[in-house]
């Protein structure tokens, strides 16, 4: 192990972190909106809404993200005249937007199922209690159903966010120089695959460590009922000493 080399590698690869985070958060944020929509469509009990949502989830969960990125970038690239006619080419011309689109569509499929699970896990008696208090419609959703659903879905959603951070590594196949893209370039210059990938793995580990802490903090903040009431004991004990 050459630690001086690994330090240099670390500094080089850190240059890819902004793009990795940018791709992760943009796609998770856009994906969450789409996922919410899909979950509501699935739960609407209206067939014309339910079926397309089911089909969407089936397709995007059932095919590899690598294939999706490849098809959106290189596949749609072959239909340039059509896309130009529709005014979409400025969007599909850029590898960044193609990557964001593929990641968003993919995460939306997974997240919609997580959100649906969360919404369905809201205890019925809580909804009834809220109705008894006179809440209904959007007020009921905003005050009771949504906060409880988010709390239930958060552990699974946290995993999905971590998966997305790692999934951004696939964007390197469409020329995006994020952490993995830079790692591949560095390996090609130095041929030291083991050291470079150890450092790249370490960077993802650090990023995901921070993200898991943030998600844990949000979970704690959302679950006041599970926390122990603040104890008064310690002050008395201190007096004894």
């Amino acid at each position: 192990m050459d630690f001086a080399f690994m330090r240099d590698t670390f500094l080089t690869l850190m240059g890819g972190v902004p793009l990795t985070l940018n791709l992760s958060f943009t796609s998770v944020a856009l994906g969450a909106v789409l996922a919410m929509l899909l979950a509501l469509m699935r739960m609407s009990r209206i067939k014309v809404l339910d079926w397309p949502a089911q089909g969407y989830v089936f397709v995007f969960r059932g095919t590899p993200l690598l294939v999706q990125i490849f098809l959106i970038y290189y596949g749609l690239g072959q239909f340039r005249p059509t896309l130009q006619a529709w005014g979409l080419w400025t969007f599909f011309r850029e590898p960044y937007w193609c990557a964001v689109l593929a990641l968003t569509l993919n995460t939306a499929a997974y997240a919609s199922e997580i959100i649906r699970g969360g919404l369905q896990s809201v205890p019925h008696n809580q909804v009834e209690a809220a109705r008894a208090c006179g809440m209904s419609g959007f007020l009921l959703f905003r005050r009771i159903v949504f906060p409880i659903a988010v709390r239930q879905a958060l552990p699974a959603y946290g995993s999905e966010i971590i998966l997305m951070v790692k999934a951004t590594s696939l964007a390197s196949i469409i020329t995006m120089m994020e952490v993995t893209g830079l790692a591949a370039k560095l390996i090609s210059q130095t041929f030291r695959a083991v050291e470079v990938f150890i450092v790249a793995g370490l960077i993802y580990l650090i990023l995901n460590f921070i993200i898991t802490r943030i998600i844990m903090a949000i979970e704690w903040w959302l679950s006041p009922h599970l926390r122990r009431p603040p104890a008064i004991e310690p002050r008395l004990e201190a007096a004894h000493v």
Partner: protein
Amino acid sequence: MKFVKTVGLALLGSALAMGAASAQEKTIKIATEGAYAPWNFTGAGGKLEGFEIDLANDLCARMKVKCEIVAQDWDGIIPALTAKKYDAIMAGMSITDERKKTIDFAGPYVNGPNGYMVAKSSPLAKMAGTGQAYNLGTQQAAAEKAIEASKEILKGKTVGVQGSTIHANFADKYLKGTAEIREYKTTEQHDLDLAAGRIDAVLADSTAIMGTLDKPEFKDYVMVGPSITGGLLGAGVGVGLRKGDDELKKSFNEAIKAAIQDGTVKTLSMKWFKVDISPKG
């Protein structure tokens, strides 16, 4: 007594024959990329084909060994050699000082220049220096002057190269700050993006460009710019070998020398590239 002698000789003879047979059956595993037409590519039916497949088979016949040719992604082709997944690389790999730090080379078996591929209708088709040839190793000043002249028209354009290649190094050294450089995993990918209009030019080996221009989809594209060899573009294409594999290096070198001398390399070069890029002198 005579009988014993005969049996003894027969036994000895068969033992020798068996020894010879096992020497015949020595297998060398050669890695190629399988995505770099016409050098090496996966043909219809999933079989590896191309210039290097033909050449490898010829060299192996000369070395009297059995060869197994396997496909390996370009990215990991050197690390996997050092990890002993195979014994040699024949994948259009240029002999460069940088690679020599990690692996050894036999050859070169060919030496061809690089070039740009652009659309005929693009302003880049008028790039300066088209048709001129320079060697960065032996005529550095003249070559760099030609490169500077050809750069003028590339300002603000996007150029695609295959990552981990001498062309990527060339782009890093001479085009950085002039054009935006995008790195692709394979030449097929940058060709697709050139056709899609996401990039304005492809910088690659002239033989790879000729191979692409042969396809009907690329009839409206041309190769432009000065033909550069040598220097950081390497001393031709050779067989990549592990350091210390001197015996294999020696037999490859002898086989390559013989194949160049009797015109086999030239014939194969004409067959696959339509130009003779066998090393001269």
